[in-house]
């Protein structure tokens, strides 16, 4: 749970990206040891430790001849299913769909922010934004690689995005109108994504869990850089502060909608829970996100655009206004502000890159004549 005012040093502890270490802790930085430090990163770290601990444990005593029983026993023991293990067809298909849509979201997610690379307000902001957008591409690639371990190939995955057969997160169909939107995306959109994704670090499918641990650690840089952009604007000129407030006003409800429909209308959640793919309900995660954001907004000195927002002593959580789910479904159906633009851009980028793929393949063929010597 969030602690009020814990971000007393709001221009954020620098993360030790450049420390040299052998594990992700050394590489991605570690500021968990500070009192009240980031609880989400701590959860990612705990998930990583749990993954190692489960792997150390005795192999579950399932009946090796009974495939389903063995699968169930591995899941029950919190161990991981690995690529060549037997798994129910619905588990495989469901995971492919979920991982692929997650990958597509990372790929399309480069567009709203890419919009501001050429207009970033300083060289440093530009370099940071470039690194962040490159990370999004990397996340898409980790996830495509994880999906491919389930027996689908990359061409099929790319085709499902380009043809519109599979969706990506509806949030990326909103436009980035001002520089402050880059901040709001980092703070709210990446923040919501992290809350959604941290539990996936404990997903029962090994390659997905490992990809998510890596992604969550990188996402926390994204969230902090967004928060820092907003903090800087909110403590700048009145015009800059107004720009920051306007971006929070526009991104708040779409970010809440990222957690999906309310539990009462959510489909295929139960099976996902039983298979330990999904671990918390949409509404629980949404609540967690709201409770995190309120004190963070206070430090920013920006207003969350919800007049009904109030601390509920009894629930020990904030009451808040639900996002407009009709709008969510409308955007998912294809009628958001930027759906057509995002898809057109992705298709054009794919087509424009065709000559590079062909040239690389021709070069590889030419040099492989007479064996596989390089």
């Amino acid at each position, binding site marked *: 749970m969030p602690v009020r005012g814990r971000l007393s040093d709001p221009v954020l502890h620098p993360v030790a*990206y450049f420390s040299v270490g052998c594990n992700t802790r050394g*590489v991605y930085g570690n500021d968990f040891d500070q009192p009240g430090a980031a609880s989400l990163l701590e959860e990612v770290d705990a998930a990583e430790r749990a993954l190692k601990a489960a792997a150390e444990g005795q192999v579950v005593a399932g009946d090796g001849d009974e495939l389903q029983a063995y699968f169930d026993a591995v899941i029950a023991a919190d161990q991981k299913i690995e690529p060549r293990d037997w798994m129910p067809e619905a588990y495989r298909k469901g995971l492919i769909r979920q991982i692929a849509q997650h990958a597509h979201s990372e790929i399309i997610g480069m567009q709203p922010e890419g919009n501001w690379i050429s207009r970033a307000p300083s060289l440093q902001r530009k370099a940071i934004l470039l690194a962040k957008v490159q*990370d999004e591409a990397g996340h898409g690639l980790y996830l495509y690689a*994880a999906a*491919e371990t389930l027996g689908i190939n*990359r061409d099929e995955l790319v085709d499902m995005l380009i043809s519109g057969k599979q969706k990506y997160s509806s949030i990326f169909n909103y436009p980035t109108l001002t520089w402050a939107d880059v901040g709001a995306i980092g703070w709210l959109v990446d923040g919501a994504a992290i809350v959604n994704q941290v539990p996936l670090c404990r997903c029962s499918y090994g390659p997905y869990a490992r990809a998510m641990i890596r992604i969550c650690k990188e996402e926390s840089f994204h969230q902090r850089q967004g928060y820092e952009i907003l903090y800087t604007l909110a403590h700048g000129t009145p015009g800059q502060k107004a720009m920051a407030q306007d971006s929070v006003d526009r991104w708040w409800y779409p970010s809440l909608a990222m957690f999906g429909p309310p539990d009462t209308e959510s489909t295929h959640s139960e099976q996902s829970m039983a298979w330990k793919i999904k671990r918390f309900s949409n509404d629980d995660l949404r609540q967690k996100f709201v409770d995190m954001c309120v004190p963070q907004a206070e430090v920013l000195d920006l207003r969350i655009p919800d007049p009904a927002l109030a601390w509920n002593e009894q629930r020990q959580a904030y009451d808040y206004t639900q996002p407009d789910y009709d709008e969510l479904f409308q955007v998912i159906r294809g009628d958001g502000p930027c759906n057509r633009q995002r898809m057109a851009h992705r298709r054009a980028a794919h087509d424009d890159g065709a000559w590079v793929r062909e040239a*690389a393949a021709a070069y590889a063929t030419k040099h492989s004549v007479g064996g596989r010597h390089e």
Partner: protein
Amino acid sequence: MSELWEVFIRPRRGLSHVHVGSLHAPDAQIALRNARDVYTRRQEGVSIWVVRAADITASSPDEKDAFFDPAADKVYRHPTFYKVPEGVAHL
């Protein structure tokens, strides 16, 4: 067209290469460069191996019992199997 490559990274001197994921590339040189961009953006490694996925032969989880069982009943391979008489040092 584009082949699947498995990527192994040595995080630093003194450690062995560890599998980190896969990627697509038309040849080994491009696979290496792609691996650098995808898997070592934060100095995660000092050395990269890329191996064509098609060139890897793997044991099958289906036959794991038959395949690995012979090791299970050879407890005498572990030093703890042996009784050491009291008072014997450096053994």
